């Protein structure tokens, strides 16, 4: 081990924090760039516009979930219920689309998703329940509601406009990818440039200090889960329209993919550190990896190994690089 200088003083410290911060962001970016370079060597089909757009479309659902998850994790929480909330939104979209049309159906599903998030938030912020437990309960509860609502059988959707939402293109870009990017931009703006966003970081960094500083900790903590619920509904919208069917098992296990994307993107599970930009890069890393494994014909069972190893290795590297 090398001797470490005392970082608390001394002129050499100028800008080191900045370097460390950019490394955290660039490290993830560098990993993505390396992966893309490697992928383009492994398959000549990788670096083509249709394939890249396909990757974007494929990651859009988990990408949107992961953005909501980033809010929650930044505030030092966790939301295990995003997959189930997506599920309940999906069956509500499917159940009401053909009878009432998009105008009613979409707000209905989104509102239900946000409401589930609100229940999570109130349980955590006002009920004092550990986020893990509260959202684990919601994971089961919301999934149960989805099964009850559908009676266990998928509901088909026959609406061409709605189908276009998940499968169409706008200016040559898949609409789901545009939705993801829009959610990303709005979220980045909220987190970086609003008092609420700042406060989310503060709550995750030291909740008690935030409270003493006058941050409305309970309200904002609740809001974070509502955002996560709402974005789960948005992801459900993409899901339902891509498949044009409302299955009650929609989104099962997605919470883990979303957490993986957040963590690979450099956001600390201990709160207060990270960004949605990082989460987006993390989503892309996982998406590109899956894509190249598909293109090179790797057994889907083996693909799981790669994904698991990626998560562990990424976090290991990150924990090393921010040591100083």
């Amino acid at each position, binding site marked *: 081990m090398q*001797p470490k200088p005392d970082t*608390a003083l001394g002129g050499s410290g100028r800008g080191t924090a900045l370097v460390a911060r950019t490394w955290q962001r660039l490290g993830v970016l560098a990993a993505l760039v390396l992966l893309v370079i490697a992928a383009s060597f492994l398959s000549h089909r990788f670096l083509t516009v249709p394939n890249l757009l396909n990757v974007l479309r494929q990651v859009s659902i988990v990408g949107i979930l992961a953005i909501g998850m980033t809010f929650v994790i930044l505030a030092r929480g966790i939301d295990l219920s995003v997959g189930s909330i997506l599920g309940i939104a999906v069956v509500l979209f499917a159940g009401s689309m053909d009878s009432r049309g998009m105008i009613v159906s979409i707000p209905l599903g989104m509102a239900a998703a946000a409401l589930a998030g609100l229940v999570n938030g109130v349980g955590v912020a006002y009920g004092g329940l550990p986020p893990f437990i509260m959202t684990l309960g919601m994971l089961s509860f919301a999934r149960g509601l989805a099964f009850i609502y559908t009676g266990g059988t998928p509901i088909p959707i026959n609406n061409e406009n709605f189908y276009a939402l998940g499968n169409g293109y706008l200016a040559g870009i898949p609409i789901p990818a545009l939705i993801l990017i829009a959610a990303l931009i709005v979220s980045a703006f909220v987190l970086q440039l609003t*008092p609420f966003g700042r406060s989310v*970081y503060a709550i995750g960094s030291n909740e008690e200090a935030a409270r003493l*500083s*006058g941050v*409305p900790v309970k309200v904002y903590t609740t809001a974070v889960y509502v955002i996560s619920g709402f974005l789960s509904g948005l992801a459900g919208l993409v899901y339902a329209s891509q498949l044009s069917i409302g299955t009650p098992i929609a989104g099962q296990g997605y919470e883990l993919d979303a957490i993986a994307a957040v963590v690979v993107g450099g956001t600390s599970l201990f709160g207060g550190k990270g960004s949605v930009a990082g989460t987006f890069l993390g989503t892309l890393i996982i998406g590109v990896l899956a894509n190249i494994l598909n293109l090179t014909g790797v057994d889907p069972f083996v693909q799981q190994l790669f994904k698991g190893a990626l998560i562990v290795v990424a976090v290991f590297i990150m924990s090393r690089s921010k040591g100083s």
Partner: protein
Amino acid sequence: MPGEVHAIVGENGAGKSTLIKILGGVYQPDGGQLVVDGEARRFRSPREALAAGVVVIHQELSLAPSLSAEENIFLGRFPRNAFGVVDRGLMRARTRQVFEQLGVTVAPQDTVGTLSIAQQQMVEIAKAISVDARILVLDEPTAVLDENRVEILFMTIDRLRANGLGLLFISHHLEEIFRIADKVTVLRDGRVAGSANVAEIDQDWLVARMIGRNFAHHEPHARKVRQPALSIRNLSVPGEISDITLTVSEGEIVGLAGLVGAGRTELARAVLGLSRHVSGAIEVFGRPARIRNPNAAARLGIAYVTEDRKAQGLLPNRSVRENATIANLRRFARAGVLRLAMEACYVRDMVRRLDVRLASPSAEIRTLSGGNQQKVLIGRALAIEPRVLLLDEPTRGVDIGAKQEIYSLIESLVAEGMAVMLISSDMEEILRLSDRIVVLRGGRIAATLSRAEASETAIMRAAALAA
């Protein structure tokens, strides 16, 4: 040396922590020698330091709160009986023995998390003794203790010294050096700035070497007290404070003295709306106020700087800038959007005004020294443009240079009309700064002393003795 207490003093950043980390095997030295029992040693890990009999007791104790005292003491080396099962009887007997030797009154089976900080410290010292430590390094052990407890700690140190243990004692409090140490070494900028037998020197000698310059002891100017800013009437919180009535006016400092647990911080928390079941009345600038939370307090112009920087103050992994502005983000927002340039400008001014020494405002606050962290937290309180400032132990864990700077800052704020309630266990501090001193005991006001009446004895008498 065995049987000797050697004190290490120096401002924050003078190199004390680095020295301790080298002794404890956490850092490796670039050069030089470490001689233990006449033998040059090099500790590549904390384990090696431990094996050589060097035990460091850090400011943040490293006990497992959910385990009992005896389990903590024998953690990782539980005595086993013939069946390979932990021999609780032996463990308890040995723990009792060590506790007796130290004069500790803790029961071996007590859960550590339920003990007071002072008792936990004793458990940690007992742990060191039980591993046959030859050299005990105490890193600012008194910073977390009130005066009675400090005296108990010193009595323990006296015993250890008599038993032939070598002790290194790190402290900010110069009086403590004279009370407990045989020798003292002053560090400044990572070098030895002086070393002497304590018997042969005085405080001025130490201070001169610590700061490398002279600082003037200056008496505060006569203050112009104006209208009452914060009036508290018959304020009570069951089990914490009862029937407290006091007024802080613009342009004055009211000191709140008392032992730890006397209800000083509890009073501040009640004013900030952080306690339930508060009875009594609070008036802010003559208007009755119902304060439900710190946010409401802030809107009335009341700001609070916590005594517990780490647990309640710092956003450790956020930047100095974000730490400074978190209490009043609205001030830097237009139409709900933060204006970063405006914020940066405020932080720049704050850094200059409070003389915060840092690499960059985007540096994480935890990389700053204690004194600079404290200045940023004061800056955070000032960002709400308060008219009443509640300062809770504002110079705890702060080096002597920064302390003076914080004093001048408080005095200049008061000169501009700020009303200050100063909670402090530092006698010199409270006597120097306060216009009046209110002494609390057991949650009640035990005495109110004017500047003329106030003295260390008068405060201690009121704080510690029944009327």
